[in-house]
Every structure is written in structure tokens, then in C-alpha cells.
């Protein structure tokens, strides 16, 4: 894809300290790369050039005065356009927020700025993070850097493509049903969905509040971990956030006696030939490192998709009620209050958003609430218990699974059939419903020309273990 060697977070950290390059040089270099490459990829919706370069000079001046800087100082980072950064637009790739400028920093952005990270700009997403291909963006699709005729996945497709094409060193996305891990898999980057509550969502535009999590994209597991370490933690502005327990099961050189569960429901049928072969290769690689595989069953897996597509639209339809034409600009030719609501939403929400608002309204409406929404909440318990049994009774340390049933599909291939699009999240949704962490890693020994990822799912709160396991895989 690109011939120049991409820098890692630690290479930037070390290079800045040894004087090999300045933060300003790095930032300028990345803005140039974006200018050159993004015409064909369209990962970014807007850039933060002026403030980004100022932040870089600030890092340089502190370095000159001999200050010891944090790990992410001078590291160029991209933000999915559902995460607020003060003074920058935040559109959620929707016409309804076309002119909205963030009034404050999301907690994750505040933490990154305190580190001295360089915010490069905001990246494309499916409208309000609703989609699996970045095609529902009101500002046009993002292309997969590995094949411009294919989607980068979604909804955080812009962030995944930016990191894959080295238009950012790392990026943040949000994952509600796979929106970090699936695009990471399609673009050949690492993507991490933390345990629910590990990272504050203050300043994240809410889609499905009981599932949304912010997490990093990176070109290595180590880089993803370095970003995660800085953004995690309890935040008084997000009541669901908490400090992860400080436990790490393995800090070892090999994987001897580590038990990895293989859920049969993820591996029987439905996988493309390339994904099936690639997963077999990954299993071999882990086995060679000493890991022991154990066949497990997560019997409610097939119910995860319908369960998710009830809960998510229900919460989304509620969350999106705030875009009513009063707070964020309105349709010009509406007269009565009712007309303002209806016309503003009608004109400025895209088709997928409307579909989910209506679906959510339906499953919450009188007469259907118990049959759909209340039912899905109970099924969610069964899905969560499947994982608890695997970790507690079957005693597996992690679970290995594909990220998606197939590699990146062609642009336009699934836009006419919503159900087919929804099916591309079939392996990522369960971790969100259960609240557990999931780490997508590009397979080294893959079948075919496109990237293929696999994911490791961990016990609730065991985020650190997944990073240890992922780093060992990368080191072989």
C-alpha cells in the first residue's frame, strides 16, 4: 500500500526524545500524507490542521525545555466523528448535525490532549454509527485502502481506513455491535472493544447506551494497548464507567497452559472459504506457541442478532429523539412545532437512521413491547450466561473467533438489503450484548488478497489479558 515505513507509538515517543524528529515534523508529515492519499480513500470528514500543528509545537517546546512527556505526546491520532473535540465539527456523518461545532471535549479527547497527542481530524462513519460499511454516511462512503472498490467496514470505517493507510498512527472509534472490530478486520488493523464501562462515553454521541464503547484502532496490539491505557478509567460524567480490576493472568514469554475456547457456533457453516482457512491457520499458530484449544459451545449465539436488532434500535430511537429541530438547527419552511420536528428529521436523517428509528419505535410501542423489547432483554441474559459458563465452568482463558463471516465486500453490494448488511456483524454482536472485551487482530497467515482478522474475546474486566495474548501472537 505505501512504501514508507509506518511509525509506531513507541517509535514516535523514542524518536522525539532522541531528537530524530520533532513533533511538528511528524504532524506536518501526516497532514501531507492525508492530503495525498485521502482524495481516493475519503477517511476524513474534516481536518484539525491549525490546532494540530499548534499542539505539536507545544510538545516540541516542552521537549526542548527538558520535560518528561507522556507516552502519547506528539502521536497523531484520528477521531471518529461521533466523538466531541472542542471547536471541531461533530456531524456523526449526518445532515442533521451538518453545522454543529462541539462545545466541549469528550473525556477521552481531554485525556489525549493532556497527553499531548495530536488530533488530526474527524473520520467518516455510517450516519450516527448505524451501519457496517460506512456507506450510510451523508458525506459519501470511505473506500478500503486495500481495494478501493470495497468497503472499509463500519461503522468506524474512516478511523480503520486512516490507520490502515497510515494517515494516522492510531485512531478512536466506537463499537456498539462490532463497529471497531469489523472495520479493523476489513482494513487489516488492530481494533479493540473494551469491557463495557472501562472507557468513559462522556462526549460520545449516544447511539445505544447499554452497548456503546469507545476503543482504539492501531497497527499493532502494543499501540492499541498504549492508547487504551490512557483513555480508560472511571469518569464522574459517565455513571457506567469504572476502574478495571488490576489483574493480568499472563505476563509470560509463551502460551503454555493457556486454554483458548473455540465456540462451535462461530465455526460451523456460514464462513467464507478464506475466513475458514485463515482461522485454521491462526489456531495452528497459537497451538505452536503452546496454547491448548478447547471446544466450547455458546448455544444462544444465533439469537444474538435478532436480540441486538431489537435492543439497539429501541435505544437509538430514544437517543435520537434529541435531534428534534430545536437544539441543532431546523428545517426552514416548517411552521408549527410538530412540523419542525417532522420536517427536520424527515429531511436530514438518512434512510438507515429512519429505518432504525421506526423499528425502535415499533418494538417499544404499546402491544409489542413485551413480545419484542422485553423478550430481547431476557435473551440478552442467556447470551451473557453462555460466556460466563465458558469462562467460569469450562475454564477457558479467552475465546477465539472470526471477526466477520467474509472479508471486505464490494461497495454497494449490500446496501439494498438491510438484513444482509446486519449479518456482517453476527460474530461481533455477542461481546457487546455480554459487555465483555473483544480484540480484533489481523491474521498473519491469511488466505486471499484481502486482510482477514480474528478476534479474541475475554472475560468481563480481563481486557489486559487480551492484550498480553495478542502481543504474544504478534511476536511470533
Amino acid at each position, binding site marked *: 500500500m505505501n512504501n514508507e515505513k509506518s511509525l509506531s507509538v513507541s517509535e514516535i515517543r523514542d524518536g522525539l526524545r532522541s531528537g530524530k524528529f520533532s513533533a511538528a515534523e511528524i504532524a506536518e508529515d501526516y497532514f501531507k500524507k492525508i492530503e495525498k492519499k485521502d482524495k481516493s480513500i475519503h477517511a476524513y470528514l474534516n481536518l484539525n490542521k491549525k490546532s494540530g500543528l499548534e499542539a505539536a509545537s507545544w510538545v516540541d517546546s516542552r521537549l526542548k525545555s527538558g520535560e518528561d512527556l507522556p507516552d502519547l505526546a506528539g502521536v497523531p491520532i484520528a477521531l471518529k466523528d461521533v466523538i466531541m473535540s*472542542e471547536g471541531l465539527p461533530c456531524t456523526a456523518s449526518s445532515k442533521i448535525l451538518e453545522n*454543529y*461545532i462541539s*462545545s*466541549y471535549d469528550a473525556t477521552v479527547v481531554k485525556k489525549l490532549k493532556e497527553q499531548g497527542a495530536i488530533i488530526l481530524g474527524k473520520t467518516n462513519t455510517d450516519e450516527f454509527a448505524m451501519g457496517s460499511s460506512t456507506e450510510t454516511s451523508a458525506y459519501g462512503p470511505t473506500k478500503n485502502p486495500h481495494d478501493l472498490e470495497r468497503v472499509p467496514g463500519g461503522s468506524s470505517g474512516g478511523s480503520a481506513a486512516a490507520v490502515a493507510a497510515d494517515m494516522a498512527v492510531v485512531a478512536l472509534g466506537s463499537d456498539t455491535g462490532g463497529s471497531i472490530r469489523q472495520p479493523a478486520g476489513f482494513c487489516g488493523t488492530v481494533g479493540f472493544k473494551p469491557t*463495557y*464501562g472501562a472507557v468513559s462515553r462522556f462526549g460520545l454521541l449516544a447511539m445505544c*447506551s*447499554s*452497548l456503546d464503547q469507545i476503543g482504539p484502532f492501531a497497527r499493532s496490539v502494543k499501540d492499541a494497548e498504549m492508547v487504551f491505557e490512557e483513555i480508560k478509567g472511571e469518569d*464522574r460524567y459517565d*455513571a*457506567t464507567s*469504572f476502574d478495571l480490576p488490576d489483574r493480568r493472568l499472563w505476563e509470560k514469554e509463551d502460551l503454555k497452559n493457556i486454554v483458548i475456547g473455540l465456540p462451535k457456533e462461530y465455526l460451523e457453516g456460514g464462513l467464507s472459504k478464506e475466513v475458514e482457512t485463515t482461522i485454521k491457520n491462526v489456531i495452528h499458530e497459537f497451538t505452536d506457541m503452546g496454547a491448548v484449544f478447547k471446544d466450547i459451545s455458546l448455544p444462544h449465539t*444465533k*439469537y444474538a442478532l*435478532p*436480540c441486538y*436488532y431489537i435492543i439497539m434500535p429501541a435505544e437509538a*430511537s430514544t437517543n435520537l*429523539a434529541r435531534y428534534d429541530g*430545536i*437544539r*441543532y*438547527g*431546523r428545517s426552514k419552511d416548517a411552521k*408549527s*412545532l*410538530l412540523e*419542525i*420536528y*417532522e420536517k427536520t*428529521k*424527515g*429531511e436530514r*436523517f438518512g*434512510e438507515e437512521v*429512519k*429505518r432504525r*428509528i*421506526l*423499528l425502535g*419505535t*415499533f418494538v417499544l*410501542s404499546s402491544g409489542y413491547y413485551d413480545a419484542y423489547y*422485553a*423478550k*430481547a*432483554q*431476557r*435473551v*440478552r*441474559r*442467556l447470551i*451473557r450466561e453462555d460466556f460466563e459458563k465458558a469462562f467460569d465452568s469450562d475454564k477457558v482463558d479467552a475465546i477465539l473467533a472470526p471477526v466477520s463471516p467474509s472479508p471486505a465486500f464490494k461497495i454497494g453490494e449490500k446496501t439494498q438489503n*438491510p*438484513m444482509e448488511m*446486519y449479518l456482517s456483524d453476527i460474530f461481533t454482536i455477542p461481546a457487546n*450484548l455480554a*459487555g465483555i472485551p473483544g480484540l480484533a487482530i489481523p491474521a498473519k497467515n491469511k488466505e486471499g488478497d484481502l486482510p482477514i482478522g480474528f478476534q479474541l474475546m475475554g472475560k468481563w474486566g480481563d481486557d489486559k489479558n487480551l492484550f498480553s495474548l495478542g502481543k504474544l501472537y504478534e511476536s511470533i
Partner: protein
Amino acid sequence: MAINKETIEHLAELARVKISDKQKEKLAFDLEGILGHFQELTELDTRDVSPVTGGTDLMNVFKDDEENDELLSKGKDAFPEKEKGFLKVPAVFDKSDHE
């Protein structure tokens, strides 16, 4: 579950969103298809299963109720219409309500 144009109109009214006639037919078709996939859930007996009502098991998370003047003024600045320091919103009642 059959979804027709009238169902879509009812849902659109509840959600306060205008849907064009052309979109109504497509959405009715899509929703019917999607709801069809939800039927799978009826296979499961969930009578004795307690619902998961949110993403977290944390209980009673409190924080002090503090004024944040900075955030308040930034929020005001971001509001689309203002007059003399007040936020301007469309009239809630129209003239017919007074008659």
C-alpha cells in the same frame, strides 16, 4: 407480522419523523423482513430469565450536583437561535390554542 403503509405512518407519527410516500413502501417491506427474523426468539422459553436492563451492574452511582458555568455558556453559544442572552425556541402553542 404484516407491516403496511398505515403501520409506517403510525410509527412515523409516534417518532415525529416525516416519511415520503415512496419511502413508506420500502420501509414497510424492510421492517416486515427484519421483524420476520425476530421470530426466532419465540423458540426460547424465557419466563424464568431475569432481563438485562442496561449495560452495567453498577448500582446507585451518585455525584455532587455542581454548577458548571463554563459548560453552560459554551452550550448556550452552540444553540442555533439566541436573543438578549436567552435561547430562542419556536412557540409551543399556536394561536388556535388561545381561542
